[in-house]
């Protein structure tokens, strides 16, 4: 593999990793607060459709982004009502909302645009346009690092940089702020928070809404960044890969970045079977690359590579007791 090809693959790695990263961080907030969320997929889909539709109608990607966030937050709130207020089964709620999202996105898109459940192709201001980072042009001449900066890091849509920025921000929120402290505490031992006189319910709703917002960003990027418009089931299991990445990352922000970059890299490789063949010398079947994130996650879950311990109170509705 030559350097130019590598740069191409790294470039698409970043693009493919972005929705995974946003969704993974989304799941991180919810699960850190003790609410399991296997409905990341549905929220992304909802956001992708809302963004695609509104961006197409208004011509502004930013209004589309707001719509996407609203759509995902709406679903997040339903999940919150089911799992926090009514203490329902969080796993079933997540599964159910994925189905609802899968269906309703097509219904809405079809009724709005009559294009077979897609939204019209987006272009111009209705998409996230590439941002050229400062000095990209000037530095491109520097050997090795120059092209890496100008071709891989520079030239992505705004959400890519927001996603990358969300990693240190999430780390900072989680470990340096009062909210983060309480969020982590409520996911580990809600009784500790309750006896300290803080509302468990309010904290968890807060977390669930943040999850909605980040899923909104992930979905918006799918529809208006990675692709130009919404299509049926366009997230294609990315919500579950993000979930896998979250487990792989052991619920930590920087690890989440690593995990999603790794999984994004697999996806990028899967798009270039020729490159793999030239590099390793034999055919690596594309499905094997597709399955790799899941296989790695199962290995992590089985505890063969250090133990992935989820937040202790995860999945359990909080009931006050002595």
């Amino acid at each position, binding site marked *: 593999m030559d350097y130019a090809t590598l740069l191409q693959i790294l470039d698409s790695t970043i693009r493919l990793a972005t929705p995974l990263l946003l969704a993974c961080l989304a799941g991180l907030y919810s699960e850190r607060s003790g609410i399991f969320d296997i409905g990341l997929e549905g929220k992304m889909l909802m956001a992708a459709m809302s963004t695609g539709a509104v961006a197409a109608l208004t011509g502004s990607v930013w209004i589309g982004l707001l719509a996407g966030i609203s759509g995902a937050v709406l679903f997040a709130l339903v999940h919150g009502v089911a799992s926090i207020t009514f203490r329902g089964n969080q796993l079933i709620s997540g599964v159910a909302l994925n189905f609802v999202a899968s269906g309703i996105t097509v219904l809405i898109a079809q009724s709005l645009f009559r294009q077979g459940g897609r939204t019209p192709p987006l272009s111009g201001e209705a998409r996230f346009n590439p941002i050229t980072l400062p000095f990209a042009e000037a530095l491109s001449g520097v050997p090795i690092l120059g092209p890496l900066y100008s071709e891989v890091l520079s030239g992505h849509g705004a959400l890519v940089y927001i996603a990358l920025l969300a990693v240190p921000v999430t780390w900072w929120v989680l470990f340096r702020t*009062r909210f983060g402290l309480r969020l982590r505490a409520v996911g580990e031992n809600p009784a500790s928070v309750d006896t300290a006189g803080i509302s468990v319910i309010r904290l968890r709703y807060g977390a669930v809404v943040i999850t909605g917002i980040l899923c909104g960003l992930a979905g918006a990027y799918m529809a208006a960044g990675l692709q130009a418009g919404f299509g049926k089931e366009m997230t294609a299991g990315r919500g579950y890969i993000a979930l896998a990445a979250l487990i792989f990352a052991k619920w930590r922000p920087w690890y989440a970045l690593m995990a999603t970059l790794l999984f994004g890299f697999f996806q990028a490789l899967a798009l270039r079977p020729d490159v793999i063949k030239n590099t390793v010398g034999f055919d690596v079947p594309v499905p094997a690359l597709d399955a790799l994130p899941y296989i790695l996650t199962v290995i992590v879950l089985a505890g063969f590579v250090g133990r992935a311990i989820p937040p*202790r109170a995860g999945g359990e509705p909080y009931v006050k007791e002595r």
Partner: protein
Amino acid sequence: MKGGIAAGRQETAAPLAIELRGISKAFGTVQANKDISIQVAKGTIHGIIGENGAGKSTLMSILYGFYKADSGDILINGTPTTIPDSQAAIRAGIGMVFQHFKLVQNFSVLENVILGAEDGALLRPSLAKARKVLADLAREYELEVHPDAVIEELSVGHQQRVEILKALYRHADILILDEPTGVLTPAEADHLFRILRNLKEQGKTVVLITHKLREIMEITDTVSVMRRGEMTATVRTAETSPEQLAELMVGRKVLLHVPKGTAKPGRRVLEIKDLRVRDVDGVERLKGIDLSIRAGEILGIAGVAGNGQTELLQVLGGITQGTGTVILNDKSLDLTGKSSDGQSRRRDGISHVPEDRQHLGMIMDFTAWENVAFGYHNDPAYQKNRWLMDNGAILEDTKGKMERFDVRPPIPTLQAKSFSGGNQQKIILAREIERNPDLLLVGQPTRGVDIGAIEFIHKRIVALRDSGKAVLLVSVELDEIMSLSDRIAVMFDGHLMGIGPAESATQVGLGCLMAGLGGADTRAMSGWDISAAADEQRLSTGTRG
């Protein structure tokens, strides 16, 4: 103990930190607290003593805003105060150290201390401040804990210090500790008491909830005794004795009369040597038990709940694993391997009426007849053929059992949860007793059971004994132990404190043993073998009285 109550009331001259007036609290039909009034003077250590289930923890949870009292008033520092939630309690200067710590296991000490008491949106200043405050508190009260240590790596004693630090960091003037020494080693407990004395010297008020007489005598200034949801007495510690408190705690009910002939003990059925059990956290709960039971006798295990009785039943019943030797009918039982499960125990001739009827003994959603097969679902009599169970046969068997054990209503198809506690217990007893076991393990046979059923259950247990079977009875009801048993053993802290014939046992003597004490009252019980440990404890307390 009218005099005792009066003694408590006379102290109104001293400023009161806490005053409760007529607090009542019911959970459904269970009256956890009945018209409780209590006064705690500022700068004192006040003990609340009583058996498990006496309502101590409920009372303190009301004070901490975890439960709302049905009626009654709370006065803090003389001011009427409503405490709707924990935050209000914290504001009123109350801190609580729960029996089960409310700590975040993977947080550092500092993080746990500031949680909910942060100074701003950012942690750094709060942490810096807490680090300073903690250093001061550590100097002042002997509360040293490394501020950056992670909770799960700390010993239980240190975790408890973190709970105390949490309360002090929130400027608590009143500190409530619920059974604080239950999880501590003696050395840790001594340290805790030094801390509590320091707190008192600094003018803090301490409320200590415990069922251990030794602690009350050692550290408190005044003590209130609770029994079955009621406050039976409040006395100055200096004016009372462990014997008197034991009496107040256990109460002097009219002994239930169980018609029972003299036992005719036969061959040795069960022999236990150096039996030890560790819980999931690796804490030793049974610390080397030796005892034996003969055919045709009931051995009663007395003790305050949580002193190893549960573990004893569970290891014998094949629910948990242990080490040591257990010989049943000259056959050594497997305590750790493949046949250390409930099915093997049943095959070996052990039946088990567990203490926790609702979570172990039955499946509440199952019908009565399904529960009659529970644990015996592999019985050939319950099978139609190789593949299918004979539900008809189980149903018939259940009908007979319900009739013989007077279960009401005698409807086998009713779900277990629809029966009253007493009738549930009868179903379990019918299932276990009619197996005609060589050894019957029975825990808390009459807990939550109505009076009528109690007598019936007792008769059945005695009848099993009379048919030449061995019975191991565990109960926290001293009356029950005394009226049913032929021999009695007392457990304390995973040890046997003493064992001897039932007829020479006295309430006071047993009470002392249950509190881990020896002494004259226990030696007065003839034929009793008192553990040396009991007398050592006695000496170390230096009891007055």
